[in-house]
């Protein structure tokens, strides 16, 4: 991962802006992930210093929450809801299909680095599953065909 580059100055400015708010750590981590796409492990010391806790504690928080990434994701993140309401509407078949179509497993990224595939437990679309999210966009009632179309469209606009 040594070839990964990110803007440390942007991270420093996020820390400076947020550090004095009560309970600043999660807002800082969200902002960093929003800006950089993930939370670089090498940013941990600066975060720890900013909010005046140990590096171990920062690391503990980053690794506790499913939402935070320590490595960059693929160009597009595909999240498939696999909670009960979507199970009742066939999400497991869709999940198998997605693995096959993309050629990677859950929590994995495709070889061409175009897609990361993730499980999510509930997108709040429980009456209209299976529900998925690609990057920031939600899709409900996703059949295999609809999934293929959505992925194809993303491939088209790389």
């Amino acid at each position, binding site marked *: 991962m040594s070839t990964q580059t990110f803007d440390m100055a942007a991270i420093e400015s996020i820390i400076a802006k947020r550090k004095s708010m009560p309970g600043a750590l999660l807002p800082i981590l969200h902002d960093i992930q929003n800006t950089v796409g993930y939370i670089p492990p090498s940013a941990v010391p600066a975060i720890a210093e900013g909010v005046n806790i140990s590096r171990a504690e920062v690391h503990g928080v980053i690794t506790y929450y*499913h939402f935070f990434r320590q490595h960059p994701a693929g160009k597009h993140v595909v999240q498939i809801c696999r909670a009960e309401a979507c199970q009742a509407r066939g999400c497991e078949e869709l999940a198998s299909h997605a693995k096959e179509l993309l050629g990677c497993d859950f929590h994995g990224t495709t070889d061409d680095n175009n897609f990361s595939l993730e499980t999510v437990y509930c997108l709040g679309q429980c009456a209209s599953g299976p529900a998925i999210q690609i990057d920031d966009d939600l899709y409900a009632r996703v059949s295999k065909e609809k999934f293929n179309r959505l992925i194809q469209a993303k491939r088209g606009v790389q």
Partner: protein
Amino acid sequence: MTFTVFVPRDSTALALGANETAAAIAKEAKARGIDIKLVRNGSRGMFWLEPMVEVATDAGRIAFGPIEEHEVAGLFDADFLNGGKHDKALGLTEEIPYLKKQERLQFVRVGITDPVSLEDYLAHEGYVGLKKAITMEPAAIVQEVTDSGLRGRGGAAFPTGIKWKTVLGAKAAQKYIACNADEGDSGTFSDRMVMEDDPFMLIEGMTIAGLAVGATEGYIYVRSEYPHSIANLNEAIDNAKAGGYLGDNILGSGRTFNLQVRKAAGAYVCGEETAMLESIEGKRGMVRAKPPLPALEGLFGKPTVINNVISLSAVPLIMSRGAEFYKNYGMGRSRGTLPMQLAGNLKYGGLVEKAFGVTLRELLYDFGGGSESGRPIRAVQVGGPLGAYMPESLFDTPFDYEAFAAVDSTVGHGGLVAFDDTVDMAKQARYAMHFCVAESCGKCTPCRIGSTRGVEVMDKIIANQNRPQQIRLLRDLCDVMVTGSLCAMGNMTPFPVLSALNHFPEDFGDQPMATAA
């Protein structure tokens, strides 16, 4: 003349193409030289009809749905703006039986107003409750909420007024209102709908709570999976502040209440109130031991009211119409209405607000229309991943906290997920344990280790390895988890597991247990 056309901005509508439909309507109207005002309202909660397009007429709003982008030109061809004939015409929205049969007290504005328009909110009984509360003594506000019989809608059903009274009585320089909007239970979306489709109702409820207990700061802890909720809440908070309904001098009263949204980070257990507090404080979302009660030592160690979105947003209605009005709905000790969420394999999934007392069967069949797959409904999980699976024989149970508890089930947050007869209940039991493995905070052993052992035991049962012994072991393990876990995560995971085993023993290769609870 200008026609007013409504296309929802609720995230389910968006997930089904509402933005594309709205853009097509704007484009088509322009091309045809028709003057329209396009309002992005909330959803009425009839999700099988989304994107649902409405047009304001003298007789009331008329609806068409579901309308996809490519059907928009056809709508104009059919002269839908003047109520023209179209095969997706639904008539007057308010007359659609699914809506008409409901008792929408709390969700009265949802789907009707533009969610972030303060003007719209005020025109629909918004802030009447706050205006009344601001003239009252704090203890009188707390008494009104107590008298309404409102109980915590997040699942624990603790009387809201009692909780407020504890915080009111606590002496501290700073107190907080913390709204638990970490709606992680599958099959639930009523919090999401409030935040997306009527956020002012929650903001008003929290402001009243602040006045009632003497808190000047509020936090809304919202799931990271709900970006639309976060955006709408922030926009509504800004508008409320600009209108003088939030900030340092609320409605010129000299009273202060400030509100901010905190984004969660995907940990289910942060829906547990003390884990949520830890998370807002910037820590791992580990459950705290109680006592001390959060009402006395909560957020940043200060007295804190923690309520769910639906509980807090019931408060404006209780204040504006009075405790008596609210209390007159419901049954037994379950007063008022509950916004129930019909999810999973149902033909007509959506939001149904009814007074307590409605039965599961009415919800599943009269509202839900039975399964979407057309197969018999075999099991319904009520109350999220920690809720029991209920078989057909229990479908006549009325929604009432005590009636559900009597059959070892829980109303929870009022979400129900229907499964047809293709469901394998042993797999669902395994999933419940697996979910607990993934989401346990790890603080207590019964939950952290118990769930892992639970998955292993379920795997053996599914693989038909010494089933009678493994089933005994599973029951024993569940007993340890129920009695020994620190919070609901560990001590309710056995609910789905044991209910699956007791009501559907054939899926576990077990003999039916007539006496099993």
